């Protein structure tokens, strides 16, 4: 029997979006009917807790637990935000879910909204996803017309408004509290926590923020049960996962596979291995802000628990592959340039340290590396840790750098000693 693909199995082969009729024919909005007619919000939260659904935005926080943080008697209006700001370099998984099946997200949001007592929900979409914006707008209109959104949905007495917010572009918007500031029409600086969003979030009201892929799983959990969802996975974290690969593999792409599929299986069987004449050197397992893993880690299972044990994070599950003809120092230089440019400039280790590191790496690439540079780089990463910064941008920036210094140290040293980039 072919492996189950709840997230992508019903998508059209031609890349078009499922409209409401097609989504309903594929079983869509059944979960919402079931929940509204026969389940309490607490029962929905319990089912999602039991399923071991962990947040797919990168941090892997248990989704049901997150929902339970909104206090039962918290004031209204309460908000729910779908984080569709997919800006993590190397990540292109939510694009597919948004473009090919926007109703799946909408149903997931209506379910999450019911569970958390949400009155108003937003889809926070990055500005560059133009096709997704058109398709989501159309799907919201169809869902309203079908009675799945708006006042007294499906005559249940529950009401939820859903709006699309299209961003104007900045990596910081993907950070939970930065996103809330952006929705309030401000710069997307993160907020000082506590208070946390479930208590005091958007416009000062209780707010839940979930990643797109997380929310898209919810209708399937409700339809098929927590036990089914856990069985989809090969490990402890429930469900399937959208894995991707980019870089110089034969067939870069995106695949929905059982959670816990190994890095080797994804890269060799699905991505087709390395291109002719190239050797694998390393991989960022889940976007720019994850630690490099190398050949010794190829048999690591891609789930939140196992990748962490191997010294990295699964992050978004979309892998960026480094080959032996690409300069690892150049790659890290590119990454740190990204983080330096996208930093909001609030915390000193981030705005000051990232700029410094960016300049050191650029100089190294240009043949102006100095003895002592590697110590300076390592020293900086020690300040980019939780507790020194308000958000995860700088800790994320530390991950590829600190791991590159460990696994590719000889390459850094060659840049300094030979006063040039050996790959140029």
């Amino acid at each position, binding site marked *: 029997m072919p492996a189950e693909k709840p997230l992508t199995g019903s998508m059209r082969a031609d890349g078009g979006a499922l409209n409401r009729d097609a989504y309903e024919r594929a079983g869509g909005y059944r979960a919402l009917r079931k929940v509204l007619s026969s389940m309490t919000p607490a029962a929905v939260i319990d089912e999602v807790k039991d399923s071991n659904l962990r947040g797919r935005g990168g941090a892997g926080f248990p989704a049901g637990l997150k929902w339970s943080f909104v206090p039962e008697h918290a004031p209204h*209006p309460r908000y729910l935000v779908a984080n569709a700001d*997919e*800006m*993590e*370099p*190397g*990540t*292109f998984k*939510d*694009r597919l879910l948004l473009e090919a099946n926007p109703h799946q997200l909408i149903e997931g949001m209506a379910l999450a909204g019911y569970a958390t007592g949400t009155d108003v929900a937003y889809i926070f979409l*990055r*500005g*560059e*996803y*133009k*096709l997704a914006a058109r398709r989501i707008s159309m799907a919201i209109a169809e869902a309203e017309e079908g009675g799945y959104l708006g006042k007294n949905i499906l005559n249940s007495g529950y009401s939820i408004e859903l*709006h699309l*917010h*299209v*961003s*104007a*572009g*900045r*990596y910081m918007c993907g950070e939970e509290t930065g996103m809330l500031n*952006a*929705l*309030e*029409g*401000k*710069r*997307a600086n993160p907020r000082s926590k506590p208070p946390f969003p479930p208590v005091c979030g958007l*416009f000062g009201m209780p707010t839940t923020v979930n990643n797109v892929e997380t929310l898209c799983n919810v209708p399937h959990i409700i339809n098929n049960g927590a036990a089914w969802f856990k069985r989809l996975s090969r490990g402890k974290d429930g469900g399937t996962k959208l894995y*991707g*690969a*980019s*870089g*110089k593999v034969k067939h*870069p*792409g*995106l695949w929905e596979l059982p959670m816990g599929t190994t890095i080797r299986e994804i890269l060799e069987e699905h991505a087709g291995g390395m291109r002719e004449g190239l050797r694998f050197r390393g991989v*960022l397992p889940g976007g*720019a802000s994850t630690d490099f893993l190398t050949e010794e880690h190829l048999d690591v299972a891609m789930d939140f628990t196992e990748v962490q044990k191997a010294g990295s994070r699964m992050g978004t599950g*979309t892998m*960026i*592959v*480094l*080959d032996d003809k*690409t300069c690892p120092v*150049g*790659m890290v230089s*590119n*990454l740190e340039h*990204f983080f330096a*440019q*996208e930093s*909001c400039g609030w915390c000193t280790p981030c705005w000051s340290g990232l700029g410094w590191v960016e300049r050191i790496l650029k100089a190294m690439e240009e043949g102006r590396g100095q003895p002592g540079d590697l110590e300076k780089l390592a020293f900086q990463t020690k300040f980019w840790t939780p507790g020194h910064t308000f958000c995860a941008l700088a800790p994320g920036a530390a991950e590829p750098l600190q791991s590159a210094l460990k696994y590719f140290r000889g390459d850094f040293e060659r840049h300094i000693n030979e006063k040039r980039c050996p790959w140029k």
Partner: protein
Amino acid sequence: MLTPEERAEIEAEFAHYPNRKAVSIDAMKIVQKHRGWVSDDALIDIGGLLGMSVSDLDGIATFYNLLFRHPVGRHVIYICDSVSCWIMGSDRQCSHIADRLKLQPGDTTADGRFTLIPIVCLGACDHAPVMMVDDDTHLDLTPEKIDRILERYT
């Protein structure tokens, strides 16, 4: 002055948020959609409508990558310079565009046809290198393909 059309589009956004200030980013995007960029005068007018200071709006406008505070060409080329595209040679594609259009990244051609802007990951990494021109995403770029694409934008 905001045109009646711009004003109506901005006011339509009010219904989505509990206060007018939350509409600031949408308002600037609406003005930019009609005029290509957001001028000082536009900030004053938007500020008047939303009850916000010009300096607040300017701080917001300059924070976001896709809001322009000075004029751009008729078409904006966004070339991805993030990691997956870099591995696949986006530096060379960017240089190719710059040479062809005789400009530096960030600049506008003398005839006002194109502005070239390096941008962060566009989320199509399995088809790197990638660029957007205006609202269209173009995948698997090569110099020849770039030449053909650019001819379509007059």
